[in-house]
């Protein structure tokens, strides 16, 4: 599995080597699971941030399904890749993809934001070691991933560090401190992924604090920049593969996404940034839109 996943799915050699595995279909199914699980967890929690969790579901599914060298059975392997969810408020999606790949139990991960549950409202590494670091204060996860990339280079560990950032997060000054630092230290084992859904807590990025020209900013800071459709699985996979081949420069994927992707009444609306309470009717509507049948809906919302 490891050898296949690092290759582009567009590469005909992969198809020839593993004709029975449809990686794209597997990842699409994982992303659907993440979205359904996210809706159910936030419904059960009676609070949470659905919009930005749904927008990054395809990115997470690609990372955990095909890019990251991480395994539940070797969660402490010092040679593993490190993934940091710097936009920590999207953690229902992280918990869901972790559950899908066996880092935690699927039913447990529905127990979101509850007293005594390790699935806190923002990821905490002392509760769930596989989340790599605690996040929830924007900008810090990115610096943390930078420190991991730096530390792995110092120890000659040939692994990569990834950070998934929100677009609103880019308004934090610390992000640009880290951007400058990563380029200065030639951290080509660091990859930033921007979930660019154009919406933040209160309104559009443009209304709150303009980010554009965003690709130019990253290029000016010395990064190799890729702009992609953050919901196009083949494009995400092949670009992650390309990003891993950059030399002496960190890489950033600016992934254009839709906030609330997959749930029509949430798509493109800042109202669903959160922290919101989902009614049962809203949750059922969302799960139906995500292709869940009555049995799955009952399982997700009631059991």
């Amino acid at each position, binding site marked *: 599995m490891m050898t296949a996943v690092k290759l582009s799915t567009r590469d005909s050699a992969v198809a020839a080597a593993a004709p029975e595995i449809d990686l794209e279909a597997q990842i699409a199914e994982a992303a659907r699971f993440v979205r359904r699980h996210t809706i159910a967890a936030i419904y059960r929690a009676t609070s949470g941030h659905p919009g930005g969790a749904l927008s990054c579901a395809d990115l997470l599914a690609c990372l955990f399904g095909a890019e990251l060298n991480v395994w539940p059975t070797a969660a402490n392997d*010092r040679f593993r890749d490190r993934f940091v969810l710097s936009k920590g408020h999207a953690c229902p999606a992280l918990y869901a993809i972790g559950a899908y790949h066996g880092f935690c139990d699927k039913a447990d991960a529905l127990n979101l934001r509850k007293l005594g549950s390790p699935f806190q409202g923002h990821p905490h590494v002392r509760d769930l070691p596989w989340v790599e670091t605690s996040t929830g204060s924007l900008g810090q996860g990115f*610096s*943390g991933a930078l420190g991991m990339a730096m530390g792995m280079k110092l120890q000659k560990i040939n692994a990569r560090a990834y950070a998934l950032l929100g677009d609103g997060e880019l308004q934090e000054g610390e992000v640009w401190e880290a951007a400058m630092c990563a380029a200065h230290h030639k951290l080509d084992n660091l990859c930033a992924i921007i979930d660019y859904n154009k919406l933040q807590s209160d309104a559009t990025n443009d209304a709150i604090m303009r980010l554009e020209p965003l690709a130019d900013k990253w290029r000016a800071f010395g990064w190799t920049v890729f702009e992609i459709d953050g919901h196009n699985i083949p494009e995400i996979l092949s670009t992650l593969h390309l990003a891993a081949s950059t030399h002496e420069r960190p890489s950033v994927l600016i992934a254009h996404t839709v906030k609330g992707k997959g749930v029509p009444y949430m798509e493109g609306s800042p109202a669903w940034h959160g922290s919101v309470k989902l009614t049962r009717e809203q949750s059922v509507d969302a799960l139906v839109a995500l292709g869940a049948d009555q049995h799955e809906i009952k399982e997700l919302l009631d059991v």
Partner: protein
Amino acid sequence: MSDNNAPALIGTSGDSLREAFGKALTNLADEFPKLVVLDADVAGGTGVHHFRKAHPEKFIQFGIAEQNMVAAAGGLAAVGMLPVVTGFAVFLSRAFEQTRLSIAYCRRNAKIVASHPGLDVGPDGGSAQALEDIAAFRAIPGMTVISPADPKEMELATRAMLEFEGPVYMRTGRSAAKRLFGDDHKFEIGKGQIVRDGSDVTLVACGVEVARALEAAELLETDGIDARVVNMATIKPIDAKLLKQCAAETGCMVTAEDHNIHGGLGSAVAEAVTQTHPCPIEFVGLNDTFGSSGEPDELAAHYGITAPFIAEAARRAIARKGSLQ
């Protein structure tokens, strides 16, 4: 870059706590193979220029960007390195929240060493004098806070900090520090030390105020007052056992610190003794004010943290003995 033709750094002294720290860290590098030192373009001021020169491969330059530096230290620790973050106390305070989340909440084995604390900074003035750092970092759960008193103790504390597993905030100092302790001095995190015994009052001090408390004890002696002096180099976790013993044996206390009286050593001492051993306590420190430019000794006198002020506070505390019963 050759150091030979560089101008002498103003205020650099072979006897300062920062110099002692920088040299100790340099000498310890080979014993701690995972050690890396992080700097925000103030290596010449924090003393780690010695380390940079001897171990350039373990020295990481972060530029003038403390927030990224502190959170990145969390990442370095996460992959098994032993990061020592260095900087000026005021500027490290701007990374308070990174210290809280990326270091302490994650319980990373990362160290933060802050030079230029308090009025001891001197002429750079009020903007540069951190008088709140002990209060701020002490309030973070699980944070150990240390403020050694002399170059020998700084050397020992540097080793103790590296051997200790967990996050530590340590204050050094800019100005020349009096040598108080000999080669047989011992330092242990969490332990206070009676450095002069006495029975009428206990003077509890940390950092540069330990020398002033000892001087105050001499002044009190000429009045026939027998003052005990405790060097409380670890402010958190504080040595509550020793403090309770001192409260019981001397019946009153004075705390002395180069820091705001709100939230620092004095507060920590009061928290430790109030419930079980209430006694009169007088607080010597900055009385909720910022500092200003001047030489450190001038400033200390101006803001009331020199030996005569400590001695006067001791007389007040003694006069109030029994008033709580």
